[in-house]
């Protein structure tokens, strides 16, 4: 609630970004910062960023919070929307309507999935890892079951495609949406009573209970938000690939966590800033594109991600007891 804007973490991330850009200028040349590449990076960034926000929320809420089900939910929402939308609108006759309905169903699915996670964590009291592990498999499973494992093609739907790929004032629409969401989220977390309570809850959920914070409902809201963000990612994915598939972006789970940890979100809860997540997502996207430009083996990139995660963990000071017991065990007092 009260902390100066440019803290160490943010400064550090800005530095990292600057370094990567400079390096790429030397290694690849101005092409790297050419408008088109910036746009294409921005487009790729959006879906990952949204998932990372979800992870950030879950982690900030504490109690060993984490959301492993993000990508699964994103894909599931795409699949379900794909199956339901035709009953309300056809892509050929009323493409615009189709897109809105599609998006609507995505968000509804995200809402439902998020509520499920929230209910499991908040009301049933499951450990977030187990809850979201279960729902991850459940969501994936449903998507596989519904599609028989194959991709469903939306085909070329003008407005949807524009949303994913065209730019206004040089900013891709989908990325614009992502930025807007980030802005609102940041404002919301910093200035709404929900935001203040979220971080208090994350730093000590027992005290939160004693001081009248509706803990269960807080978890419900938080994981529901994460679910919604995931489903927005689902829309972007569908629009970008003009198709939906259960296993799209199976590598995102870990990358989203990596982004969050790089952003200084504390795995034991109570800390996490939208702006930092944004910055670390950008840093990762820059690096990944740089690797592609330099035709560096993608296997090496996985390796690098892993090491990066460890390095940033090393950089962040994390409280020892929290990794031994993910939820403070009942005191023997």
């Amino acid at each position, binding site marked *: 609630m009260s902390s100066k804007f440019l803290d160490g973490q943010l400064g550090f991330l800005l530095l990292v970004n600057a370094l990567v850009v400079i390096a790429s200028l030397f290694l690849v040349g101005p092409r790297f910062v050419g408008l088109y590449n910036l746009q294409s990076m921005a487009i790729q960034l959006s879906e990952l960023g949204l998932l990372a926000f979800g992870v950030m929320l879950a982690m900030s809420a504490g109690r060993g919070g984490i959301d492993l089900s993000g990508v699964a939910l994103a894909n599931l929402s795409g699949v379900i929307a794909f199956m339901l939308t035709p009953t309300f609108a056809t892509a050929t006759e009323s493409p615009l309507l189709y897109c809105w309905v599609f998006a609507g169903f995505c968000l509804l699915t995200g809402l439902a999935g998020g509520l499920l996670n929230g209910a499991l964590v908040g009301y049933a009291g499951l450990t977030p890892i187990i809850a979201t592990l279960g729902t991850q498999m459940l969501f994936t499973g449903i998507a596989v079951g519904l599609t028989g494992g194959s991709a469903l093609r939306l085909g070329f739907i003008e407005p949807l495609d524009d949303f994913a790929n065209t730019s206004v004032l040089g900013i891709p629409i989908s990325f614009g949406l992502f930025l807007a969401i980030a802005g609102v989220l940041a404002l919301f977390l910093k200035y709404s009573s929900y935001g203040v309570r979220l971080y208090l809850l994350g*730093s000590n959920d027992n*005290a939160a209970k004693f001081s009248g914070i509706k803990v269960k409902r807080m978890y419900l809201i938080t994981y529901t938000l994460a679910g919604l963000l995931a489903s927005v990612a689902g829309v972007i994915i569908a629009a970008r690939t003009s198709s939906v598939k259960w296993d799209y972006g199976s590598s995102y789970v870990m990358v989203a966590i990596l982004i969050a940890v790089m952003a200084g979100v504390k795995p034991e809860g109570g800390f996490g800033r939208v702006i930092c997540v944004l910055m670390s997502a950008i840093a990762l996207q820059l690096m990944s594109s740089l690797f592609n430009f330099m035709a560096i083996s993608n296997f090496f990139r996985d390796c690098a991600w892993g090491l990066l995660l460890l390095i940033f963990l090393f950089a962040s000071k994390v409280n020892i007891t929290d990794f031994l017991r993910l939820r403070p065990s009942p005191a023997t007092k």
Partner: protein
Amino acid sequence: MAAQPIEQALPTTRDSSATAFIELHEIHKRFGGVHALKGVSLNIEPGQIYHLLGENGCGKSTLIKVIAGAHPASSGHLKVNGETVSDFSSIKALSLGIETVYQDLSLLPNLTVAENIGLSQQLVKSNGKLYRKLDSAALIQTAKQALRIVELPVTPTFLNTQVDRLPIATRQLVAIARAVAGSAGLVIMDEPTTALTKSEVDNLIAVVRKLQAEGVAVLFVTHKLDECKEIGGIGLVMRDGELVCQCDIADLSKQRIGYLMTGREIEQGRYRAPQQAGERLLTVNQLGKTGAFSNVNFSLAKGEILGITGLLDSGRNELPKALAGVEPASEGTIQLNGRLLSLHQVDDAVKAGIGYVPEDRLTEGLFLDKPILDNAVMGILDKLRGQLGLIDKHRATEHTENMVNDLAVVASDVKAPVKSLSGGNQQKVLIGRWLATDPQLLILHGPTVGVDVGSKDTIYRIIQQQAESGMGVIIISDDLPELIQNCDRIAVMSDGRMKTIVPVEELTEQQLYTHIASGNKATQGVAL
């Protein structure tokens, strides 16, 4: 008061270093900025019994944790049997025969009674090495012996019960059993009797005598002078991290000890003239919670301060939690201003105008890593809404700064994390948070535990002020002087019932104690 000369009214403590089992030299201990031990020197001799006395938060537990190797001392050194011990650790302490019953009992919740008692010994045997076979037979044997000593059953079912399924009193006995299981040179007990009945305490005392006879030294940490006197031995009085007196417990009067502990004559003088009952505020009718308390009835007037005390398992800890909606009651009714309340969660109570300052400010009260600001305003966020329903930071800061001034909190900056405050100041912030919600009824659970003299006084004055202004106050405490100084009436609980409610003017500490003692359970010594 730093350089206070230590009273040496005891022949035994002279040139004793030859015979001493443990010698402490100028031990200091700091936690962050908290200077918990300020140069403690002490000799502990075989077969001697010690009573470590002192106010809450003066450093007793810290001292014994240092002796038990649980905390490394910040400076100073420590000798056992004459030679200095380097890299002192729990396992080393155990192997040297220093056994401890910690204040939090330090039992492993998910292990069985037998394991909790027997494992330490096996560890010592293998001196800390874990790649050893577990000698189950020996473990059971140790456990059985120890359990017999404290007169707990030795049935297999009990031996294999998981500790977190035992009631608190039994846990305390198990912890004691663990301590007496080993062949100890020193047994330390940090407030071991808080949850025990008289008979259990007597039994414990017998155990202690046996140990003493075997030449084992025993160090009690306690607030209960009668126990000390009954047992006899050397009294060690601490004040604010310093050892201010070592002398025969028999020679020490309550007043004397009170003076030594606080550094001033404890004025039994009350903070306020008793109030004639005003307009009815709270009515509690037939309130009950299974396993905790049952048909509790009492009422509270506006501006009245009610004290509640009793033994640890008397239900005095659960009743306030029920009133505050933390652990709602299962039967009975609560009325505030004649309005019937249904309290399912804390928020209901808050909305109804009830504030609850919990017992343990570190885990239940404060968000230690978070700024004073957030801690202070979290209760009134909805009132701080500006345009767009967003929170108005300026008003929040303003509010917090006012609070810091009003309650004389010693703090550099409202954005500093609460953990950077001293114990007393932390407590003030916590109380401040609840006052901000201006409740009609404020419940304070152990309002001055771990708080030093200065802050104590401030906190009392705040409480009185609020009562003057018509707020109803309930104080739950086992610090009897505190109750007598602050309350208009004092309720005594035992066995989950509210035994009596006594107007304070016709009440002395002694009488109050007898009230606590009475009831179908026999009781332990009076609290100081």
